[in-house]
């Protein structure tokens, strides 16, 4: 089966109000070209589930987000994501703020088609007060321990970015960490993967060890070749984070005019023009 598609076709499947899970972590290997396409399409009222970075910041700045499910939002080298902060401080977002391990548990429960998974994390903290929909569950065994029943975080769509992929939807990460990209895919009804470079299936194993082949074709519905598609987040070993560009992006949160200019130059243009503009 040939699952090759384009960012436009992927985003044409999305609807206002959907719950979208975004892979990567902070400012690391984020499917940014797909995020930029969502911005161009002007989708609204999205619920995002993310180990958040500039994916969250950009979509918040564009007014596309109604609700955010997160444990943190950070640009790593810039610890606090300024566009996310701005949206929060304006009281714009509905939020489900969780311990980052609880977020994994929610994705894992959805991936296993379970209603919840038990965890001790969250007890005693304000996670429970701030999310009154969270329930406790008692161990049915002799210990009788009270635990949090972390509900499944079911996603309409998952978006991830890999270093390599084949046309059938097998994905390969060549950097140090898969993060939770497999769980995002398994927790979603529709799964889309962008990749730095599309290769023939036999080339996958030539490019990295067996252990890098963690996204299997049954976990993916569409593959988009997107060179530098994670820009400006890092995508090792293909490229590092574009720190200078990230600083420029971050600075636009202070000033609506600067954001408008940034948006006009880098976001209201095609992906090809974006890549040309950032290379200048």
């Amino acid at each position, binding site marked *: 089966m040939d699952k090759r598609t384009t960012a436009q076709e992927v985003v044409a499947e999305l609807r206002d109000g959907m719950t979208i899970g975004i892979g990567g972590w902070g400012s690391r290997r984020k499917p940014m070209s797909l995020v930029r396409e969502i911005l161009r399409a002007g989708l609204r009222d999205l619920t995002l589930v993310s180990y958040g970075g500039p994916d969250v910041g950009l979509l918040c700045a564009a007014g596309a987000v109604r609700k955010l499910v997160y444990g*943190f*939002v950070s640009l790593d080298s810039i610890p606090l994501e300024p566009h996310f902060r701005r949206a*929060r401080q304006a009281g714009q977002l509905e939020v489900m703020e969780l*311990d*980052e391990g609880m977020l994994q548990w929610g994705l894992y429960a959805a991936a296993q088609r379970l209603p919840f998974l038990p965890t001790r994390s969250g*007890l*005693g903290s304000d996670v429970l007060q701030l999310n009154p929909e969270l329930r406790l569950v008692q161990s049915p065994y002799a210990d009788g321990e009270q635990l949090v029943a972390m509900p499944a975080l079911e996603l309409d769509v998952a978006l991830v970015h890999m270093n390599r992929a084949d046309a059938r939807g097998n994905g390969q990460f060549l950097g140090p960490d898969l993060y939770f990209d497999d769980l995002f895919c398994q927790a979603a009804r529709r799964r889309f993967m962008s990749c730095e470079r599309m290769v023939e299936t036999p080339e996958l194993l030539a490019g990295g060890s067996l252990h890098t082949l963690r996204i299997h074709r049954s976990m993916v519905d569409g593959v988009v070749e997107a060179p530098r598609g994670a820009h400006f987040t890092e995508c090792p070993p293909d490229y590092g984070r574009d720190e200078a560009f990230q600083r420029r992006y971050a600075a636009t949160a202070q000033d609506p005019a600067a954001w408008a200019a940034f948006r006009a130059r880098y976001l209201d243009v095609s992906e090809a023009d974006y890549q040309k503009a950032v290379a200048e």
Partner: protein
Amino acid sequence: MSADLARAARAEVCAVALAECFRGDGERLASPFGAVPSVGARLARLTFEPDLMLTDGIASLRADTAPLSGPARGEPVVEGWLPFRSVFDLLWSGRRHVVMAASQLDRFGNQNLSCIGPHAKPSVQLLGMRGAPGNTLHHRTSYWVPDHSRKVFVPRVDVVCGVGNDRARELGPRTARFHDLHRVVSNLGVFDFATPDGSLRLLSVHPGVRVQDVVERTGFELAIAGDVAETRAPTPAELELIREVIDPEGLARREVPD
């Protein structure tokens, strides 16, 4: 040289105090957040706690003790792979000691990293909960505060991320059996929670700091150990390790200026 060695910077005193936090930890993952805690963890491993485990800050467990910044000394020696998923597995198993930052910390060690002001519309949005709720319920936790003030040491934190001793007590002994607040180190002194009600207690003040200075810059009533000591000074060997091997570019001194 020897005169210079004799005078440790405040950052170096703090780094030794943080190294002391890891004493006795053995084969556990040390997860230090901040430059000074990172110096402390490396110093502990190079001296009295050789079995401590450290990452490169990304996803590798490093057998060699690399400097905080600047050129590496020799080839890196990787002893394991520790992606985030494995960090979560490991922390739930308890074999970890985290030193977290705190935007706010109260008398019982409740910590806030999330936001200042009402959660629905914060006046200052910070990082988010991160792993603090889970960390504090599963393994030993210490805190590092580079700028001791009433803004950080508050009567009540706006959001409880890391769980304090009062909240842990309410959870009961079974649920809280792995809860273990160990130390707080600030740029002024070293603290523990070894009081009958589990509230913060001043153990030692750094050289040049008076007990009164600490009390004035703490926003709640601080328990004070009967015999507040002076935080131990770095040994000449420790200073040499910090300056020559661990932090040659002086990141710790930038975090805590003298």
